[in-house]
């Protein structure tokens, strides 16, 4: 079989993870990554990048576990290696706290992170408005470092990177045999999928080097994530909101909610603010679209989708990338059979 040409569309954490998975595991195919925006201007760049998830009732638990475990284990090896600082991957311990005792006290990922346990009464004293909490160690993956590191890895595996805006996947079918769509929100047009909706999130980066633990409120809206160069605090979840401007109201709200969990934040300096649009979907879409027939020469081009990860892109990127790799492999084998 002559050189198979794969193109990955999207230079965020899902795009680069997928491109690396394919390039490293299928050395005989050529892989090109096309992106309109690259780090530090992708949605992934502003994300705190803490590996963590909420249970999605529309995805089989086994599949969520598989995706999360794959991502966690992959990043954990990087966190323990020499590459950790360059890749922006580190261990992070902390607490998820709830005002009301949740029904599900041990979520599906509790045995996939490290040292998961229920918080003791003494630990809860710091949070007088919360009645229940979980302590564990997870990973923080900072995309402003991780994406350039993945790009290096991708190029080392023979990948090609090109800055280009793609308006139509069909435009690529002349030059490529497999198109992997990791365009996040862009899939609204590229995959004609209007079920992908922006969920606006605003965060602040604070100078608070004395903070070593994450605190995540079970409401999903209030969080404090200490990182390599600042503490990311947030957030907001505004469905259907395309506004990329930093809003003063949201800044005040975030500071108020986070300071009530961690009073020392009132004395911390704001380093920067950022807004991102989570590519939200009922479930992440990781599947092959019916094969696209190209008129010239009777070739068929496979489209594999890997988008719609909402606010847990970093948490699921590697796992869904491996899944997408599996779909690419299957389709290549299928094509072989056709020859």
């Amino acid at each position, binding site marked *: 079989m002559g050189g198979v040409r794969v193109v990955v569309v999207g230079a965020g954490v899902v795009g680069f993870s997928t491109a690396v998975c394919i390039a490293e595991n299928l050395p005989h195919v050529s892989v090109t990554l096309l992106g309109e925006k690259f780090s530090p201007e992708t949605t992934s760049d502003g994300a705190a990048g803490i590996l963590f998830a909420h249970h999605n009732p529309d995805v089989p638990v086994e599949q969520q576990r598989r995706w999360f475990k794959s991502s966690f284990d992959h990043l954990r090896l990087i966190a323990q*290696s020499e590459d950790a*600082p360059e890749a922006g991957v580190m261990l992070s311990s902390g607490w998820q706290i709830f005002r009301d005792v949740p029904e599900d006290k041990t979520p599906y990922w509790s045995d996939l992170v490290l*040292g998961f346990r229920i*918080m003791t009464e003494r630990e809860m004293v710091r949070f007088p408005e919360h009645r229940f909490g979980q302590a564990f160690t997870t990973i923080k993956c900072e995309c402003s470092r991780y994406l350039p590191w993945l790009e290096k890895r991708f190029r080392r595996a023979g990948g090609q990177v090109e800055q280009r805006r793609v308006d139509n996947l069909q435009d690529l079918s002349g030059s490529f045999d497999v198109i992997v769509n990791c365009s996040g929100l862009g899939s609204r047009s590229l995959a004609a999928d209007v079920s992908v909706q922006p969920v606006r999130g605003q965060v602040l980066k604070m100078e608070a*080097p*004395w903070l*070593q633990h994450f605190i995540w409120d079970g409401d999903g809206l209030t969080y404090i994530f200490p990182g390599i160069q600042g503490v990311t605090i947030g957030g907001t979840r505004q469905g259907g909101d395309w506004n990329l401007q930093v809003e003063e109201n949201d800044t005040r709200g975030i500071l108020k909610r986070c300071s009530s969990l961690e*009073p020392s934040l009132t004395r911390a300096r704001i380093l920067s603010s950022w807004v991102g649009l989570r590519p939200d979907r009922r479930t992440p879409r990781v599947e092959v679209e019916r094969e696209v027939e190209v008129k010239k020469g009777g070739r068929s081009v496979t489209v594999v989708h890997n988008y719609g990860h909402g606010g847990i892109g970093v948490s699921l990127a590697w796992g869904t990338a491996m899944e997408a790799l599996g779909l690419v492999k299957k389709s290549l084998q299928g094509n072989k059979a056709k020859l």
Partner: protein
Amino acid sequence: MRVAVIGAGVIGLSAAQSIYEQFHSIVSPLSIEVYADYFTPLTTSDGAAGLWQPYLYDKGNVQETKWNKETFDYLLSCLRSPDSIQMGVFLQSGYNLCTEPAPDPSFKDIVLGFRQLTERELQMFPGYNHGWFNTSLMLEGKTYLPWLMDWLQKRGVTFYQRKIESFKELAESGADVIINCSGMRSGDLQPDPELKPGRGQIVKVEAPWLKHWIITHNLKKGVYNSPYIIPGSRLVTVGGILQFGNWSEKNNSTDHKYIWESACQLEPSLKHARIVQDWAGLRPVRSKVRLERETIQSGAAAIEVIHNYGHGGFGLTIHRGCAQEAARLFGQIVEQKGEGPKARL
């Protein structure tokens, strides 16, 4: 009453604080003076990483465990105070690793969230097959000492940069009570064969991706003689040396190599950390802390001394409990001298 404190490390400053807190409205006038040859940032307390953690086992010394606990609870209560950042106190979690199964440490019920390490966690540290995880407190000397000095200065405590040669010297100049917090150099004021230097050397590096301490224990090599990595608010302290009887405060390149190589084995990402500074200090090691009164006859006069020294490598860990005890002993002297509230009736 005139109180003279010798020593401006964490022990001296906190003793001054406790005495002021408990007696400034009872004894009038109460003047407190601190004498030291070194002040922050040059004291032993300044070089320490600042982790609250006693030795693994208290060997029956329940008094010291009580003082350690008092200090922990006190610092924990300071966390929500508006002063917490200026005090240099904050929470941190981490790993204590052993090469063989070992009994739980004496501090397990004092710290927060103490638990055994899981198999998967131990896999991160090849060569170590047992250990614990817990949340404790950091108290950075370089921040805490200036805060203490400021606190004391605002309340009229005065400071003198001077090496005191004898207790007599201070008594003759009018001090009613002397609080001896001279740490390693207590032997210069009064010979103490039980007090020996436990020389330590550390490397301070920039590695802001590290948020947990990693402390290894080798029960054969003894405490602090096994690599440890303790992140602070700005720099990470890397160490693992305790040399009994070595008085040198100079950095030693063999020690540096040993510390650095073993730490990088433990935490490979350190290879990319920027080295900022080496430092060597002398832990004032003693079989147990000397915290007691002594009345020294000097001719016709009796000099009241409260000794508070010999805190080894756990000065920051135990300081508040000792300071409160020193204040209690001071209270006895106040009663005896008839300066207390009863005397006023």
